[in-house]
């Protein structure tokens, strides 16, 4: 999808004066099916921005999802709808399969094959996964929730060009289905390919480059 900037879309996420002790304040309005690339130097606060949206760090300000303020939604329910995928994924069990709801394993296997992952990886231990495999499986873990908003922190940072293309194609499918994606990336080319809008984080604030 080539998201034409300026096309009016139904609002999905509204961020209003969101800030923590370390970053912000941030203001942003983003629509359904939009992909927004976020760039900025290391340590500029890009990840902290995404963590704030997912309500993982304490802060002030408000975020609205389809018009509903965050404080009216219980935190776990919020994080199932507004899912943050960090650059370094966390794993809490020895076995890969235990990180997915058992009801979703069919979806997970199909998705794994589309991202060129060997489905038998699911039956093995996390320790045997390469960093690229971890990154793709962590993305699938998030996609399995079918969230309204995806907050992706360098989603292809550990991937080669082929895998990157597969992940981007999968994300395009999601965008078409209406998912809003905020994507931190270090690749200018990826921002060009994926995003309709491009924002920079500089001095802990959002700026338009």
């Amino acid at each position, binding site marked *: 999808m080539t998201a034409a900037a300026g096309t009016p879309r139904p609002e999905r996420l509204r961020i209003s004066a969101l800030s923590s002790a370390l970053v912000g304040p941030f203001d942003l309005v983003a629509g359904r099916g939009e992909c927004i690339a976020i760039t900025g130097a290391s340590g500029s606060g890009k990840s902290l921005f995404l963590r704030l949206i997912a309500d993982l760090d304490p802060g002030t300000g408000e975020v609205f999802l389809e018009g509903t303020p965050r404080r009216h939604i219980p935190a776990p329910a919020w*994080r199932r709808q507004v*899912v943050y995928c*960090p650059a370094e*994924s*966390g794993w809490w069990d020895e076995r890969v399969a235990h990180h997915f709801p058992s009801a979703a394993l069919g979806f997970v296997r199909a998705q794994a094959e589309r991202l060129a992952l060997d489905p038998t990886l699911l039956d093995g231990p996390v320790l045997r996964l390469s960093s690229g495999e971890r990154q793709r499986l962590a993305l699938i873990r998030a996609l399995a929730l079918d969230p309204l908003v995806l907050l992706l922190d360098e989603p292809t940072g550990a991937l080669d060009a082929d895998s990157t293309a597969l992940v981007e194609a999968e994300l395009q499918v999601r965008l078409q289905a209406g998912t809003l994606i905020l994507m931190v990336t270090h690749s200018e080319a990826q921002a060009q390919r994926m995003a309709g809008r491009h924002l920079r984080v500089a001095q802990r604030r959002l700026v338009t480059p």
Partner: protein
Amino acid sequence: MTPILLTPFDIAASAVLLVFDGVLSLALRLDLHWRLAIAGARMVVQLVLVGFILRVVFALGSPVTTLAVILVMIAIAGREVAARPEQRLRRFGNYAIGATSVAVATLLTAVIALTTAIRPHPWYDAHYAVPLAGIMLGNILNAASLALDSMLGCVVQEKAAIEAQLMLGASFRHAVHGLIRTSLRRALLPIVNQMSAAGIITLPGIMTGQILAGMDPLEAAKYQVVLMFLLSGGGGLAAVVVVYLAAVRLTDDRQRLRLDRLHAKGT
């Protein structure tokens, strides 16, 4: 059943063995003789002092002084629990958790023991209450401090794993389940070991003391069995309170993991 009373000469004779340690340290240049001397002197002063205090407390026979002595012991043990972990919770969180867990576990198990299993008259008789609380405190301190050390240490290491679950919409309670399980297991393992080893590898302190004081070994064994059960209950209770209070302080009303409330010792 009259115990053999020790004379100053008996004590001096046993002290010769400490002198032997000192000589060993000098001869092998272990550089421990000075520390041995200080520790030995400290031990004598502390125990004699405690003996005097207990004599006074026993003579008074007042529940108020008995409770006061036990509370002082609890406060010291609570401080020990708070001081062990490398990580500290802000706003004296370690101290609050240490004191609360030790107090709850000690008072509850001691009262249960004194009103059901041991039953002296009156039930708060200092002859029973103070030594019982002392023994309980040793184990409770151990369990509580292992639990707190494990909670605060592992939560830092497990940050990515815990937050990964939160990011996917898990409740905080669910996300820290593994951490809580590990911490409780660590806290309770010494109690399991202690019970398994009792009598075979070690002769427990109380039983030894009562046999030395002239009690029938079987009676002493029964006492020890009751005590072991109390200790395991007290240790388990203290560990549960520690783990629960620590978990509450590590999160907030939005079920975040609040590692910003932790700081390393000395910072």
